[in-house]
């Protein structure tokens, strides 16, 4: 009983540490800049009407605007008309902080375009990873050939190589063949996932040999076995791998930052966050956090949907 209590206490503590940044992110995405600076307003902020200074500044009336507004304000001096126009602008630029943050997130940068890029890149990476990893894992798990153990050791060895160590040579190779600033540069280096090969191989080992022999007797070739027998039985493990792969590449900031230089049409969602980094006129933490929230939401939703099967895949329960 007490042991359970301690266990839960430690788990709760760990969960809090993990959740805290998310809490801050979501909370900031609701608050006005003032509240963020002063650190007040609780989780939701007070949601008082605020004025978007930049919006007001953009609508600052010039001589023609004043002249054009004369019919609307008869019997007023120019400076009175000007003040009235400014007051109008201020009231038009008033909004709740939450609306401000999220509308800014989508208007300040082409966030939808970035999200689409993210989908294209992560989906291509994942699909090609499967096309490579499934046959490789099948061969390593179920076929007998000379040097199989050595090849598998190589796979394990490759798991130990950190991405950052080979980033520079990869970049140089891509640059030499003129692939920087293309989707290919974002996708190609990740298409062979040793982690995927390893994970699928561990799962395939639990698939009974009889099933594969039955498929052979039924007239299937080895590739047909991979796609028609192994793939459908490996769905839980594939989902687990999908989460790892998609999360890693959706959230990746490092690699897109290196190979996409300048062309904003190729920006992935995390690169979009840079649009709000504080330049001369102060930081936009509210919209930035709103962008971050928008970026992680698809992942969280996907995880919640696939949660049960994901855990099945991780525990590699296999087939009973």
């Amino acid at each position, binding site marked *: 009983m007490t042991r359970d209590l301690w266990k839960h206490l430690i788990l709760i503590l760990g969960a809090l540490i993990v959740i805290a940044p998310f809490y801050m992110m979501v909370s900031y995405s609701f608050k006005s800049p003032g509240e963020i600076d002063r650190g007040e307003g609780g989780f939701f902020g007070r949601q008082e009407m605020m004025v978007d200074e930049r919006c007001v500044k953009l609508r600052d009336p010039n001589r023609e605007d004043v002249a054009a507004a004369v019919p609307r304000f008869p019997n007023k001096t120019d400076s009175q008309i000007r003040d009235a126009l400014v007051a109008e602008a201020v009231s038009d630029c008033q909004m709740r902080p939450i609306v401000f943050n999220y509308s800014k997130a989508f208007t300040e940068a082409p966030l939808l375009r970035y999200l689409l890029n993210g989908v294209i890149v992560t989906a291509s990476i994942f699909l090609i990873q499967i096309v490579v990893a499934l046959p490789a894992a099948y061969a390593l798990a179920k076929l007998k050939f000379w040097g199989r153990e050595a090849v598998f050791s190589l796979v394990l060895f490759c798991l130990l190589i950190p991405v950052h160590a080979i980033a520079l040579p990869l970049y140089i190779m891509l640059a030499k063949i003129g692939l920087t600033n293309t989707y290919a540069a974002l996708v190609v280096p990740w298409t062979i996932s040793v982690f995927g090969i390893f994970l699928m191989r561990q799962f395939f080992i639990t698939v*009974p040999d*009889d099933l594969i022999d039955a498929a052979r007797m039924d007239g299937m070739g080895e590739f047909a076995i991979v796609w028609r027998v192994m793939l459908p039985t490996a769905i839980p493990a594939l989902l687990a791998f999908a989460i790892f792969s998609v999360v890693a590449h959706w959230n990746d900031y490092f690699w897109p930052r290196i190979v996409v230089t300048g062309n904003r049409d190729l920006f992935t969602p995390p690169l979009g966050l840079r649009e709000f980094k504080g330049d001369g006129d102060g930081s936009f933490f509210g919209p930035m956090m709103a962008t971050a929230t928008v970026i992680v939401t698809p992942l969280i939703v996907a995880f919640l949907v696939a949660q049960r099967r994901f855990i099945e895949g991780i525990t590699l329960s296999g087939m009973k």
Partner: protein
Amino acid sequence: MADLQIDQVTKTFGDTQVLKGISLDIADGEFVSLVGPSGCGKSTLLRIIAGLEGQTSGAIRIHGQDVSGIRAADRNLSMVFQSYALYPHLTVAENISVPLKMRQLSAVQRLPVIGPFLPGSRDKNVEIAAAVKHAAQTLEIDKLLDRKPGQLSGGQRQRVALGRALVREPAAFLLDEPLSNLDAKLRVQTRAEIAELHRRIGATFVYVTHDQVEAMTMSSRIAVMMDGEILQCDAPDEVYHNPLDIRVAEFIGSPKINILPTEASGGVLRCGDVLLPTLAPNELNGPVLLGLRPEALRLASEDAVLKGQVAHVENLGSEIFAQISLVGQEGRVTLRATPVQRRSLRIGANVGIAFEGRAALLFDSSGKRVFNPHLIPAHSEVA
């Protein structure tokens, strides 16, 4: 439908020789069981026939054609596995249709989504569906066609596995212990059904089992395998009554055959203090093993040559098996008695044992059968 020839097949894994030159001719339409204890190489032999494993030397011929080097898919054999090996993600109907689809549809026609709309695939799919339905009706599983294997009982899965083998007309059926995952009652029932199925379709069956009862009840011939060799291949009756090797005699038959160690000299067998005349051939000398089936032994009066004490009695209702410790012998012998004799089989009772000389099976010290030419026709009684 075809005949199978296994010619001097050997198989070695590393240093161990699993099959030591197996030769076996299986005629078209025959039901041959490969029976033996686990690890005797019978499953390996079946997998070599199937093409799932390569032989080290020797040849397999199907219908006279050497199939070495031809992959399993192209040997036109069907196999039923011990674990049934159904595709867990496909329904029963889809499971049964796989062998037909893989053989009758082209790769393009098998594609998901667009495949069924390609020219020609519609007719073929109708044909396949009809074949699946027919196979399912034969096995009485036509009501389960939409289920997934996970929703079926063991017996039903076994039928689906049979259906998948049955749906096309293979050269031969290979069955690898298909009943061993069923409970005892279902096993008896399915045993009869498979034997009936074989009679009905008249195809060649090769059946691997470690259960001698299955082999005895279903086969046209039994090949008893041990240590990578076929010791004897004969009709069940012959294997039971006329075993050529003591290992065959011990493996076939339940309860096990009684083996008594004896010394032969001049036609007389000496078993401990007991002399058993006229059993052995005159020229045989030295240690001889005397095998007696439980049903060959009869209860006799206490002055019979073999005497003993009742040590344990198993009453099966229709028959009684009594274990009797022989006087002057270490082991016990098992004797089959009728329920009428039950009263004389109290534990500890002294009984005499008699048997007909014809029923005695003699084996020399290497385990090979010794025939006594004088005994076969004559009626001699040892009492």
